């Protein structure tokens, strides 16, 4: 264990000198500011205001949420001022729903909502799923996405930078003649990055999901973070050992981050459905992380088995390439 401790300390010092922790802290601050002062405010759209002109008082069950206006002119004026609002003209005995051109696409939903406010006795209430408020949901959603992006892009880059440094210094060759097990050199790096990612995940979740919600979801989130962190760290080591220099790596990095992240985000967060996405390994990991954030038990034993096989397989490949690198000439 003394040997492993020495390796860990050396890797931490390499990361400190490479300003990796500083970079992670910077990203943590940036994400937190974005979530709390940008994303959540942007997503906080008020509910539709419903304005009604009903001179004869035909709508007796209308909810108190409906704003009654005294004339048709005032109804139009209210809608012109509030693009998001919806109007009801009940002056001819019939209900005529009005909304502005800008909100045409959401018009049907608005109409349904407005009419539902007039029929309070029908008890037509939708079943409420979950216990999270829209803000809580939005916070979990964006935190999950940012954590996934951080692991895919930033962590991957960080470990590759450390390996490139060691390659350039030639010290990987010295590892070959030290009385230490070869796999410890890799394990120490993976451990440092894993711990760093776990701390990052805890802080990011704490600052953006909130203290009360974090406690419940943290074990699941950390488990998924661990899988993703180890897989990305091993992939980063493989790329850094195989590729000649950092310029080549930059190209590979772009390809990996674009192809790993883009289809996953598109499939998971937009109506675009890609048929082949179920074969994309990162899609399953992303969904695993999302399930953890939303406390859903959607991850099958097969998923965990797949993760373990991926970690084991990548570690074996990394060890093989690492041994080969030790025997290379400068």
């Amino acid at each position: 264990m003394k040997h492993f401790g020495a390796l860990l300390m050396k890797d931490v010092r390499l990361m400190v000198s490479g300003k990796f922790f500083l970079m992670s802290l910077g990203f943590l601050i940036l994400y937190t500011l974005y979530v709390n002062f940008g994303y959540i405010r942007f997503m906080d759209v008020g509910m539709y205001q419903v304005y009604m002109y009903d001179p004869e008082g035909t709508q007796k069950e209308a909810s108190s949420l409906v704003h009654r206006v005294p004339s048709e002119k005032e109804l139009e004026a209210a809608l012109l001022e509030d693009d998001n609002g919806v109007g009801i003209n009940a002056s001819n005995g019939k209900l005529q729903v009005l909304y502005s051109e800008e909100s045409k696409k959401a018009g049907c939903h608005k109409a349904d909502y407005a009419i539902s406010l007039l029929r309070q006795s029908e008890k037509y209430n939708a079943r409420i799923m979950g216990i999270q408020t829209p803000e809580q949901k939005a916070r979990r959603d964006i935190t999950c996405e940012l954590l996934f992006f951080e692991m895919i892009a930033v962590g991957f880059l960080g470990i590759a930078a450390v390996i490139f440094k060691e390659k350039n210094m030639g010290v990987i060759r010295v590892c070959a003649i030290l009385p230490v097990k070869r796999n410890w050199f890799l394990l120490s790096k993976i451990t440092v990055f894993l711990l760093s990612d776990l701390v990052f995940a805890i802080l990011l979740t704490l600052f953006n999901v909130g203290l009360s919600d974090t406690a419940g979801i943290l074990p699941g989130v950390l488990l998924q973070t661990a899988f993703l962190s180890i897989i990305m760290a091993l992939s980063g080591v493989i790329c850094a050992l195989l590729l000649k220099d950092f310029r080549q790596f930059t190209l590979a990095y772009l390809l990996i981050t674009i192809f790993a992240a883009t289809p996953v985000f598109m499939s998971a967060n937009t109506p675009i459905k890609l048929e082949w996405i179920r074969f994309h390994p990162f899609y399953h990991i992303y969904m695993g992380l999302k399930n953890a954030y939303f406390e859903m038990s959607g991850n099958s034993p097969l998923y965990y088995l797949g993760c373990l096989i991926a970690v084991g397989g990548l570690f074996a490949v990394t060890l093989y390439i690492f041994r080969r690198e030790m025997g290379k000439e400068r």
Partner: protein
Amino acid sequence: MIEVKDLTFSYGKDKQILHGLDFTVEDGEIFGFLGPNGSGKSTTQKILTGILKGHGGKVFLFGQDISTVHTQEFFQKIGVLFEFPYLYANLSAVDNLKYFSSFYPAVRLRDIGELLDMLEFKRDFLKKPVSSYSKGMRQRVSMARVLLTNPRLLFLDEPTSGLDPSGAVLFRRIIEEERQKGTTVFLTTHNMLDADLLCDRVAFISNGSIMALDTPQNLKEKNSSHRIRITYLYQGKREEMIIAASQLESGISFPYDEIVSVHSQEPTLEDMFLQYTGRRLT
């Protein structure tokens, strides 16, 4: 200490690098392994230090087959100096040595400060990062890393590379002191001066085969013309005469006023290498 029998090695199917090497290195011997770039000397050293696997033939170190002895105990007994000084550039000399020493039992370790003093390392740089060192200073730290653990067998690859003449003299003196302590040294080099001054025996390797193996003195004597060149002054003129060494037994037979110099016509190790391998070392 080292016994190599019919050692072969190939990179892939077609690229055979070593073609059946046979040699032994005795305890406490400085053995020179001389060859130009691409001759197979680095490959041989990598096999002996356990970095490369998959060789043919037999290699015994410390009396044990190398295929079975790559344990932590084995690596504790050897010290390897690479051709380039591989160190952590962000750490200081002291921190590098502390890091590398942490993998060895404390009883084997020498004092870092004393070792760096012995290697005439500039004290001002002790705590500065290696990235600020000259190549000579890095080589001194690398040598300190190798000697730090009191290894019984040293593999030195171009130890005086990057050193100024006084540094090279210092390194040769340190290697000689190690031998006097009983350490065996396997010296890989194409520096003929190092080989000639340090080695008890040298092997010439070319294209993966050993072309000659003997003491430097024997190699030179066997191929010597046994002639002597004498420079002298006679009647105010500077003259030169080459005579057979045996002629000297009966004294100088030609007239002279003053002998300026007497040089044997013995070939250099470089000449011998060229003669045996048909190639120059550099």
